[in-house]
């Protein structure tokens, strides 16, 4: 019996070791031609990467590993050196990133726009308005339920800017009607759908979202709801582990005519979710 017990222990140890080796091996071989891209939940939840990554692999041979976080979080990941490339939509934060020397160059890639969603019943009565600032003000005045990302994401930062532009100091002028959930776009949409509340979303994620409930687009088209995406290579001088060549190759693809066309070709129900604009000035 002593015999069996010893061999039982050895067996367990062997299985454990084997499992770890397996787990390690299942990612080891890809290390050669792979990069880590820190991007946003909206690009993930819109399905863009599911569509784009196989194409990128085909065209460049690069295996792209996407970590989806809020824009603010993604940039922090870049600051820690845990990603090779950052691909977000929060221009003010991206410029800060550049100023800190965390990257050497920012490339605009594509844009879409934000839309203000709300329940069919529209308690604030803002459907069809053209002025987003005015609409937000009415929501605040009427204390209509509003869901905020609250997570330093590109969408959250854009939302805060829109409140500011509408003359509302949302930091002090909020109340139980303003619900900051600290989560991604999908979670925010789920919450808004369940609570029949207003929420600001990027169009891409909204088109792709499957739990729309009673929500509809109520305000769109205001120039201030423009949502620009930019990509940056994390500075290899600051973080020697960054895969400089592969990262740059990925960026070069995104802004190349082929890449831009691939982005434009991504459609849901016949509608494109993103509009390429790498070659337009001032993005």
């Amino acid at each position, binding site marked *: 019996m002593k015999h069996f017990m010893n061999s039982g222990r050895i067996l367990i140890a062997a299985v454990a070791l084997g499992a770890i080796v*397996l787990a390690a091996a299942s*990612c080891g071989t890809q290390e050669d031609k792979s990069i880590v891209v820190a991007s946003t939940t909206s690009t993930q939840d819109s399905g863009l990467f599911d569509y784009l990554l196989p194409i990128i692999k085909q065209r460049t041979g690069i295996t792209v590993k996407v970590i989806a976080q809020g824009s603010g979080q993604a940039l922090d990941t870049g600051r820690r050196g845990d990603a090779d490339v950052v691909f977000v939509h929060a221009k003010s934060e991206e410029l800060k990133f550049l100023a800190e020397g965390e990257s050497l160059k920012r490339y605009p890639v594509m844009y879409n726009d934000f839309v203000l969603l709300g329940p069919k019943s529209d308690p604030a009565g803002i459907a069809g308005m053209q002025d987003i600032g005015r609409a937000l003000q009415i929501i605040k005045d009427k204390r209509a339920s509003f869901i905020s990302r609250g997570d330093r994401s590109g969408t959250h930062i854009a939302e805060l800017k829109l409140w500011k532009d509408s003359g509302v100091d949302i930091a002090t002028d909020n109340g139980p009607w303003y619900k900051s959930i600290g989560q991604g776009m999908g979670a925010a949409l789920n919450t808004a759908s369940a609570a029949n509340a207003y929420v600001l979303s990027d169009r891409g994620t909204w088109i792709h979202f499957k739990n729309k409930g009673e929500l509809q687009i109520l305000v769109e088209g205001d120039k201030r709801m423009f949502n620009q995406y930019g990509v940056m290579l994390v500075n290899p001088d600051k973080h020697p582990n960054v895969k400089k060549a592969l990262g740059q190759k990925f960026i070069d693809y995104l802004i190349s005519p082929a890449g831009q066309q691939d982005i434009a070709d991504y459609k849901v129900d016949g509608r494109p979710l993103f509009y390429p604009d790498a070659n337009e000035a001032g993005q």
Partner: protein
Amino acid sequence: MPENNSALHLVLTGDPALFAIVRLSLIVSLSATLIAALIGVPLGALIALTRFRGREPVIVMLNALMGLPPVVAGLSVYLMLSRSGPLGSWGLLFTPPAMVIAQTVLVTPIIAALARQTIEDLWVEYREELAAMGVGPFRRVRTLIWDARFSLLTALLAGFGRAAAEVGAIIIVGGNILGFTRTMTTTIALETSKGNLPLAIGLGIVLMLIVILISALAWGARRASERFSG
């Protein structure tokens, strides 16, 4: 994984993406549980059988760590493995081994605390007989662990259940990368955030069935073993 199909459809047609996800979930959680057992059972036995200063606070601490929040475990491991952290040069962040590490951190206290209680209870029972048989410390530990093996197996299952069910730790250290670090629970979280609730629920049921299956297998192994020894 096609999003417009139900989870059942994916299972029946043997969707490769689904199977890859299930495989990764099992590998990560089973590895973590086994490593946690290799650490936790001897640790629990050590605490159960030795008298040392501060023993009671250690036991209280160990019991409390059973409730370690997964996000806290995940965050701690993330900070260790990040490139700007102490173990960054290992390059383990956003890989399955990182997920195994995070889950091991979660599961080890569970197994150690339960093992400690089990072995201590058995020791109280066996103490005099073993002393009368002149059994020394090494043989004593082996005897207690062997005779308590079924209760220890239950402790392992508790640990495995915790690992298989959690998402907070592995999503932070793994990054939920498609094709690399996406598991059942992180996929459920992702599909939920895409609003794909039926698929999320369906995957949840698949996950539960797998866990039930493993629990049943363990029970079967125990019954078979009981019949041979007692």
